[in-house]
Structure formats: C-alpha cells, structure tokens
C-alpha cells in the first residue's frame, strides 16, 4: 500500500473518472450529476444507502443502463454518456464480478474459466484439455486458490468461488495491471470469516497494483480494505475521501446527511453495541414462550434453549453450526429426529401441530434468511405480499374485500415506513431494505407470540437496518418473544438480551449483560474447544 497522504491524486494516477453522470428512470432521478474518481492500484469503496445510485452507477459502467448525461474517462479515452457502452468499458479494461458470480457450480474451475475465455484448441480443432488445465493451474496459483483445475466449483468454499470469479474476470491481464476490477457486493452472501478471507485476498491484489472498485453495505469490511471512499446519497456524490481514514461514524454521517450521531442511525444502525435492556433470564421471569429441549436433526445435536415473553435471544455460530436449521425446526419446516419443541403462547385452541401451517396458527412467525428465494413473491403486488399471511381475513362469501385489503396495506406501508410506489406496484420494484421491512410487516400484522428472524438485516441498507432494529425492539416490548439468528456479532450485541453460541450442533455458550460483547462472541464462535453436553443422539444424520 502506498502513502495515504499523497493528495490530491495526480492526473496520471487516475484510471477512471466519471463526471456529472445523470440517469433518470421515469420520474425517479437515480443519478444526479454524480462524480467518481478511481486511482491506480487502490481499493475504492462506493458506499451509500439503498437507492442512493451506486448500483445504477455500476450498471452504467457495465453498459446495462445508458446514462442520460455525463462523461466517462478511462485509459486515455473519453466518452460522453451516449457513446459509452459495454464494449467500450471492456476495451478500456473494466472487469465485473457481480453478487451473482455467474459460475456453473457443476462444472470444473477450468471449464468455468474456458467458458468465458474460450477453450484452447489443438491441431484438429478438438479442445486441448492439457493446455487449459496448465493455464488454469497457473491462474489458481496466482490467486492463491488451493484447488485443482478439475475441481467442480460447487466443491469450493464460498470465498474461493468468488476468487475464481475474480480470477476468471481478470485472466487476460498481463503484468502491467491495466484492468480495473469492479466488485458489486462481493461479501453480501458470505459469512464473516469467508468475507475476511476474500477481503484479505482482494487487499493483496491491490498491494500488487490491482485497481478495485467495490460496492458494499458492510461498513467494517469496507473500512478494513479500502484506500479511498466515495459516498453517494440521493444520486449525488456527497463525499470523496482520498487516502483519508474515516471511521464508521464518519461514513454513516455522510450517507445519512446527518452530522454527528443522530438517534436511530447511529450505533444501532451500524451494529455498534448499544445498551441492551439486559433482563437476565431468571427462573421466575415472564412465561416461557419457546421451549426447545434436546433437539437433534441435520447439524443439530441436542439443542436446549428457552425464550421468554418480551425477550430477544440471539443465536450465532459458524456456517453449518445449525443456526438456520434451528429456526426452521422451530417453525416446523424441518422435523427433528429427537427432542421436543414446545410453543406455549399461541391463541387458545390453536393448532399445535409441528407443521408450518400449525406453527403459524400457533402464533409463530418466521422471516427467512433468503429473502428473494424464501420470502418474496417478486412479481405479485406489494399488497399481495403484505396479505400473504392473512388472506383468509379478507374473504367474504361474495368475494375478497379488496378495498379493505388495500387500505390495510397502505396503512402498513406507512406504519412500517416502507417506501413503495403504491400498494399495487410489483414487489420487485422495492429496494432490499424496503422488501425486508415489508416481509417483517407481513408477519407482525398477525401479532405473533414468537418471532423467528434469520439474518434480519442481510443486504439491507443502513437506514432500513435502524428501522428494523426499532421495530423488533418495539415488538418485543409488546410481549413477543424474539429469536434472532445472525452471523453479525455487532448486530446481536446491539439487539439481544442474551446470545447463544452454537458449536458442534449444541449450545456452547451463553452471554448476557456486560459479558455480551462482539469480541467475546467472535472468540466463542471460532473456538475449537469441544462442547460439553449430552452425547450425540443415536442414529443422528450427518
């Protein structure tokens, strides 16, 4: 890394400059004369809340959208917005790795690389596998990916898959490092230790002279890896920090446009530890809503836990520790092979069947981790999405009470501060944060006795994150028991009364009160100490 004080960047340093870029979608101004300057050999973070225009910028650079006005300068050439297209960007050296990596999991690394660059051919026109494997092996060594070219991509760890995508994107780069790597939310779907591996690798590339433009929601990660920062707000570049060392608070202040540390967007919003209400789970506390005892199945090997009325309990652990399995078992989607799940506070006479429908009737709500895959109805309306849990309420013998339903949906949008064009707009038109708030609203309107949240703020912008934390706290304040699974230790510290650490399929530790810190949680999560507890249930599955 070079000196951080070399300000301002000399003209020769600049590999990419965007000036006055404007892009309009119908009535929405997505980019409003935005600027961005990228220096050679740096990692440049592009940050901002959802809807600030960073995705639009990336899409303009990739040639997916054409900007309405502005100039793009790169590699000694200059284009007006109208002239610029995907081919120009590629010729000038831009290479993209999107959140969806575009890899074929069943195919080998070598084939994934070859499908992008072409297969080397032998004399008769047949594929020369030896040449391909030799070349890919070199690439893997260069990117420090510990795998053979014949390994299927599906067999790699998540961080390695991203690295393969990066290596593939940059494979035609010679030693002069002329290419610019654009990473769009590279860590959004990775657990923390995997993101760390990936970011370390990206940092090493940059130290060797690679220029990287990175978009990310995760502030601590951005801060750990980036040299320069550009902050977008409402389609404008509101701050350009070159070689500075901002704190998380500085960045959030720029993103929100509120100086200092306003309530609701400060520590809680970014996941700093804030004072938890700290009710220790005494033996004579409020009634137990959820009682899990000795549950085994999948990665779980005898989990015991209780959640009381009004309590927010966190669950953390490495990927594969069973966080998600635990929630799905409680929700009735997975059937445990041993142990019992008791839910005590459903409405009287409600079903107690251990099926999804039974659990819902019993007052349980579940917001899954994979919003697009397991929660959203992307092409249905916002109203349909909000009503999905309560459709029967609107049924009359002469049909659905459509007006009533719309009025209720509009009221929910207001009370949960969800930004939507209208109740009849397709759900996909909402930003990630607003979608998540809508999914939460869908369940909270049932006034659940037990709320299960799996990674509630993944891929959610800072402002919506603050809203979600506030809503979850208010819900618990009304007496709902909340169980939150998350890999974000800071989030758990800020939100939960106590946090359980899952390891080896069992509860390895429990932290509450002053003990509950992110460092302690991280240490306990990563620990390799064997977990004391009952012997694994007989007949357990892998």
């Amino acid at each position, binding site marked *: 890394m070079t000196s951080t004080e070399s300000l301002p960047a000399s003209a020769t340093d600049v590999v990419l400059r965007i000036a006055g870029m404007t892009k309009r*979608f119908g*009535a929405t101004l*997505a980019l409003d004369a935005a600027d961005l300057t990228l220096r050679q050999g740096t990692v440049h973070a592009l940050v901002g*809340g*959802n*809807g*600030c*225009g*960073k*995705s*639009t910028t990336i899409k303009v650079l990739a040639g997916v959208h054409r900007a309405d006005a502005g100039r793009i300068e790169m590699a000694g050439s200059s284009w007006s917005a109208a002239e610029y297209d995907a081919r120009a960007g590629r010729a000038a050296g831009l290479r993209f790795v999107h959140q969806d990596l575009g890899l074929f999991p069943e195919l080998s690394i070598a084939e994934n690389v070859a499908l992008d660059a072409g297969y080397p051919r032998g004399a008769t026109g047949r594929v020369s596998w030896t040449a391909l494997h030799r070349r890919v092996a070199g690439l893997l060594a260069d990117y420090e990916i510990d795998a053979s070219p014949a390994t299927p991509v599906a067999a790699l760890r998540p961080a390695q898959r991203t690295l393969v995508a990066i290596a593939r994107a940059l494979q035609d780069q010679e030693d002069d490092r002329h290419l610019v790597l654009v990473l769009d939310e590279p860590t959004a779907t990775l657990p923390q230790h995997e993101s760390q591996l990936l970011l370390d690798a990206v940092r090493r590339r940059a130290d060797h002279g690679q220029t990287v433009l990175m978009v990310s929601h995760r502030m601590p990660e951005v801060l750990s890896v980036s040299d320069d920062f550009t902050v977008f707000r409402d389609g404008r570049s509101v701050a350009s920090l070159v070689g500075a060392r901002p704190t998380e608070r500085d960045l959030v202040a720029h993103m929100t446009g509120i100086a200092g540390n306003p309530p609701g967007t400060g520590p809680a919003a970014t996941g700093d530890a804030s004072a938890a209400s700290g009710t220790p789970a005494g033996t004579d506390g409020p009634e137990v809503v959820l009682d899990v005892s000795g549950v085994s199945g999948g990665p779980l090997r005898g989990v015991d836990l209780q959640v009381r009325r009004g309590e927010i309990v966190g669950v953390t652990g490495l990927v594969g520790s069973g966080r998600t399995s635990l929630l799905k078992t409680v*929700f009735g*989607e997975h059937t445990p092979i041993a142990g019992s799940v008791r839910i005590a506070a459903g409405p009287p006479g409600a079903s107690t069947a251990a099926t*999804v*429908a039974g659990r*819902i*009737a019993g007052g349980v709500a*579940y917001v*899954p981790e994979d919003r697009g*895959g*397991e*929660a*959203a*109805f*992307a*092409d*249905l309306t916002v109203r*349909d999405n909000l*009503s*999905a*849990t309560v*459709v*029967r309420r*609107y*049924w009359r013998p*002469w*049909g*659905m009470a*459509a*007006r009533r339903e*719309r*009025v209720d949906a*509009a*009221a929910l*949008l*207001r009370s949960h*501060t*969800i*930004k*939507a*064009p*209208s*109740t*009849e707009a*397709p759900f*996909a*038109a909402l*930003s*990630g944060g607003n979608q998540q708030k809508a999914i939460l609203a*869908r369940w909270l309107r049932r006034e659940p006795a037990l709320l299960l949240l799996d990674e509630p703020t993944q891929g959610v912008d800072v402002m919506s994150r603050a809203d979600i934390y506030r809503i979850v706290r208010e819900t618990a304040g009304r007496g709902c028991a909340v169980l939150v699974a998350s890999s974000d230790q800071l989030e758990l510290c800020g939100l939960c009364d106590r946090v359980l650490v899952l390891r080896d399929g069992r509860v390895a530790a429990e932290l509450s009160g002053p003990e509950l810190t992110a460092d302690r949680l991280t240490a306990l999560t990563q620990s390799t100490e064997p977990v004391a507890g009952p012997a694994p249930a007989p007949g357990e599955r892998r």
Partner: protein
Amino acid sequence: MTLTNTEHLDTSDGNGSDASAPSPVAAPTPSSRLKGFAERNALLALLLAVITFFAVYPESSATFFTSQNASVLLGNQSVVALLALAVILPLVTGYFDFSLGAIAATSSVLTAGLMSFHDLPLGLAVAVGVGVGAVIGGINGLLVTRFGLNSFVTTLGMATLLGGLIQWYTGGQTILAGIDPALPRFGGSTWLGLPRVVFVVLITTVALWYLLAQTPFGRSLYAIGSNPRSARLVGIRVERSVWTTFVLAGALAGVTGVLQLARAGSATADNGTSLLFPALAAAFLGATAVVPGFFNAVGTIIGVLFVSVAVSGLTLSGASAWASPVFNGAALLVAVGLSHYLGRHRGVRTG
C-alpha cells in the same frame, strides 16, 4: 389476482388516511393509470377491432356480422373455451398440463362407448367420463407433486398414453350409434338465441373467476406460481394445492369431452391435440389481458374469442384452410412474447 377491471383503477385509499402525515405511498400518476388501463384492455380492443374489420370488409360483411354466424362461432368455440379454462388452473401455479386435450378426448370416447357398447344410462356415462378425467388429473398431480417429476414431460407422456388407449378402446373407429339422443339434442339446442353449451362455458368462467380471484385458495395458487418456497413458508400447503389444480383441470377437461360429444353427436378416436393447442394459445393470450402478466379466467375467454373471430373472419373472406393454423400459431407466439415482456417490465430496479 383479486381485482376486477374497475377495482384495479382505484389504488389509493381516498379517505381514512391522515392527510398531514407524509405518506410513503405515492398515488399513481394519471399517465401510469392510463397505461395500465390500456394494457388491461388491449386484447379486448383488438377483438372489437377485428369484429369491426370483418363486419365492414366487403368479402366477409355479408355473412360475418350475422346472429347466425355468431351462434355457430360461439357454439363451436365453447369446447375450446372450456378446455382453455381447464388449462389455466395448473398454469397459475406454474405447471403445464399437456394431457388435458387427451383427457377431454378420453372422456368423450368413454362417455360415448359406455352408452354405445355397455348400454349405460346417460347420467352414469357422463359421470364416469368426468370422474375419469378427475382421476387422471389426480394421477398427474401426484406424479408432479409427490414424486417431483417434471410436469412438461409427465403430462406429455400421459397424453401419449391416453391417445393409445383411445385407439385400443375404439379400435380406431368413430363411435356413432347408441348414444343417448338427449345429449346431441342438448348440444344443438339454443336458449335466448345462443347455443346452450355457451351457457355452460359462461357459468364455468364465472365459477373459475370466483375461485381464482375471489377466494383465499385462488390467491394461494398465484402465490405458489410466483414463488413456491415463499408460499410454503407463509403456511400454504403447496403440494396439496397444486394437486387440487390438476384434479380440477382434469375434471373440467372431462366436462369438455362430454360437451364435445354433445356438439358432435359422435366420438372420434382422436388424441385431443387439435383441441389442446388452440386452448393453450387462448390461455397465453388471456394472460396479456385483464390482469396482465397472470393467467386469468376472463382474459382466457377474450383470448378464445379473439382467435376464433379472426379465424372465422378469414374463412368467410375466402382464405384457405391453412389460414387458421397459421393465425393460431402466430397468435400464440405473439401472446407468449407479450406476456414475457409484461413480466419483464414489471421487473426489478434497485438503487
């Protein structure tokens, strides 16, 4: 989808909201409302345009715009219309059922055969025909949901199988004799100047519209079509619902077969493909209208009318026999293209 035409227009709640509070819900702009209105009614407008054209066009004006032609047209299309309604049931949840044409043919042949070969009374023969349709639908549904087989291939296989069984049962012969005359009499009679079978279609359309748009079950079917995993996690019994659509579609195809027998007065040893493809075309055309982007009952009927009116007009103006399949095929391609476009431009845009 739940909304009828007029309800769709009114999306903002006029009263009862706090006017002083900044609302995150923006009222739709007049231009977007207009665009939505145009989109929902484009197919209907096109239908009216085609009717007007052939009513005025000198080659066809003499015969086209007569109550006689309307009666013949509606009577002949009622069979396709009924099958198209059956087709959309599994389509709403995201599954194809290619065997519905063959189920209709099976029901037709079986109903005729039971009366002709086994001297069963009319009522019982019809009940068996419809019942067998439901049972075959149930088998399809079971294969697709319980065993997770691909619906495309499964129902194609079922269609081929049924086509073979029809050949075996009839020996390749048309069943002419022994059919209770009450059935063809019903098929040929009129009420209020329209063939009676048209009213069967009308009642079925209203029933299906009610089921799909006005009941929680119908809403859950659209939810499954949108995202089955999400549907499961909001408590919808996905497999059972999908299975039910296959059974209902099979039964409706069974009714179609009986109706076909009533219209024709005889049952040919046909595999039903000639019926299925116009029905599919109408279903996909219908998904571009009324509730654009989604299969719906009213749109499907407009789709049937559009294709049949255009073909009738072409025939009456002296177009050759090839005009009908060419128009059907072209309409299907345009419809699929349009619904793809409608689905896409409803799509994502994030910051």
